[in-house]
């Protein structure tokens, strides 16, 4: 795990005249997204999260659809063991992190660690978003290095955060939760966002706002963090 030092962070979507700065406490973060191999180890110890066992409340029918069986075969481990695990639900990702005495990062923690405000990153990220070619099977150790020694924060997969739906429920005295949500659908979003031209962040926030806990998808994985 890599140490992400404490710091101040202005959330991407914030409204009002006083843009609140958020104090981020130092934490440790997985250097890479969780791999298929690591998730397989977790399932060996926790059978209830295997795909034939998992409750439909906690994962939809596409859960681990890229795995042939409940556990990976030797051949599959060779082939995809080092690639990030995808097609996992928020519930499963959360359970994985808890089993490692960790947790999923909050949106603020994730965005802070990902250095996603850095203008240099933005066009790079946009290119990934705009590309059809999938590279989610890149071995995690080969993913590009970002700030704080973290690999693959941008340009490979989407990642679960703990409060992915907080954009919907964050409230403030002048706007209802549903107004905030509309901000992501139409022009209103540009009023509430820190930087209207940061389209890359817009897309991440828009993506997260459409999720629900049992949703799984071929480009959505996760990594864990631990408090210091």
């Amino acid at each position, binding site marked *: 795990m890599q140490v992400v030092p404490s710091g101040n962070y202005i959330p991407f979507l914030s409204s009002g005249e006083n843009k609140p700065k958020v104090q981020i406490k130092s934490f440790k973060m997985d250097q890479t997204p969780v791999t298929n191999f690591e998730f397989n180890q977790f399932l060996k110890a926790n059978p209830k999260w295997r795909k034939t066992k998992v409750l439909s409340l906690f994962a939809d029918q*596409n859960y681990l659809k890229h795995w042939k069986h409940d556990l990976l075969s030797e051949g599959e481990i060779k082939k995809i063991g080092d690639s990030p695990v995808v097609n996992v639900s928020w519930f499963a990702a959360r359970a994985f992190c808890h089993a490692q005495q960790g947790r999923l990062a909050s949106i603020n923690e994730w965005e802070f660690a990902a250095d996603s405000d850095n203008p240099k990153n*933005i*066009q790079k990220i*946009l*290119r990934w*978003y*705009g*590309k*059809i070619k*999938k590279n989610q099977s890149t071995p995690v150790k080969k993913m590009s290095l970002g700030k704080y020694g973290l690999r693959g924060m941008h340009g490979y997969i989407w990642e679960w955060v703990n409060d992915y739906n907080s954009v919907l429920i964050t409230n403030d005295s002048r706007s209802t939760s549903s107004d905030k*949500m*509309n*901000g*992501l*659908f*139409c*022009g209103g*979003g540009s009023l509430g966002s820190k930087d209207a*031209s940061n*389209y890359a962040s*817009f*897309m991440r*926030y*828009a*993506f997260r*706002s*459409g*999720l629900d806990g049992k*949703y799984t*998808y*071929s*480009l959505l994985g996760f990594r864990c963090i631990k408090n210091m």
Partner: protein
Amino acid sequence: MYLVSAVLMLFFMISCNDNVKKSSKKWPPVESLPVEEAKLTTAPNVPPAITRKHPAKVVVNLETREFNAELVDGVEYTFWAFGDSVPGPMIRIREGDFVEFHLNNHPDSKMPHNIDLHAVTGQGGGAEGSFTPPGKTSIFNFRALNPGLYIYHCATAPVGMHIANGMYGLILVEPEEGLPPVDKEFYVVQSEFYTEGKFGEKGLQPFDMNKALKEIPDYVVFNGKVGALTDTNALSANIGDNVRIYFGVGGPNLQSNFHVIGEIFDRVYQEGGTKVAQKNVQTTIVPPGGSAMVEFKVDVPGTFILVDHAIFRAFNKGAIGQLVVKGEENHEIYTGKTYEGIYMLEGSTIQTIPKVKEKKDQVVNLSFADKMKEGKRVYKRNCAACHQKDGSGLKGAFPPIAKSDYLMANKERSIKILLKGLSGKITVNGETYDSVMPAMSLDNSDIASVLTYIRNSFGNKGKEVTIKEVKKVRKEK
């Protein structure tokens, strides 16, 4: 803040009034409606006119996809689209229809998508009810309260990028009484693309956010790519057809100045409304997120060019389409070219450059040397522009003076040409020329001098021309 509130209140008051008007119309309850599936068409095709005389429940199935395709030969772009082409399919429903709208986001998409149909009365135009992550389906319903031609587009953040990548199309809500029948209907949408490389730069071109923010596109196109409506893809009609074009602008930024070269729109339903706002229109402005219906009868054959008349967009960025009209020529309306000749400033046939003042001939017999000197001056002023300084002429247009068999063959004819002009076919040094030379308003002395000069320059060698000889020819009829 107060101002905003006031404006908002005003807005709601207006829309309330509008709502009162709309809701005063009683539509049959949804359960009582027959159910049918909407027939969607890919541009430039238009779904068939609606023949039923009552509302129905219409099921619309639309899929969102992300794919690579050509923007112009050799240039690829990653499109986001409704369906598998840009613009998305055209939807045709009827005023009062109740629409069950299914939005299906393909599992291979990277992005969540939704749809804002400008034909919808309801939050976000349906965007709020159709936000769909990859691999999921959303359903929402709406009543088509207002007839007209409407844009639909994706409204997921960042909206600009979803539109810039191709997520738009048209939905037509026919008025209860229907639209007047026409012979040919076409579906055309204009939009722009912003790429990192310049127009025509080969390879897969990524979206350029900075160009989009500055609103300087590299491509302005009809129906999603350069050449979507030209050559083998051209629209076609026959003489006598009444043509209607359902025209929309996806944007994201630029309005269209829609014009069909060689046609006049007989009727324009401006802004996609249901009333003919103007007749006999040359160019109609269509805003991004807007539309227009234009109608015109094609009377003569030919290739009629659809353009955005902000003309650099047409000739340098791709905003060109073709409507090929077949049938017999009608010379009562248009003849085509009936003549081509040299443009003469006044009149049509052989023209005389007017004399300022007719002088009495100076009967001074110049020496050969003086004629040569004077003749050179006259030549430079009157002849060199066409026949060139060195007498070489211009192939195909102006016959040569230099070593000219035609000139040297007949002295009298040369004098006559200068005095009376010449038109029609002649052969000079084996080349045929078919043009016009005007009669020159030169006095006899100048003509004698210039002819002496050219007959003894540029490799020619001949006798000098005298004033007497010129006088003689001038007297001839």
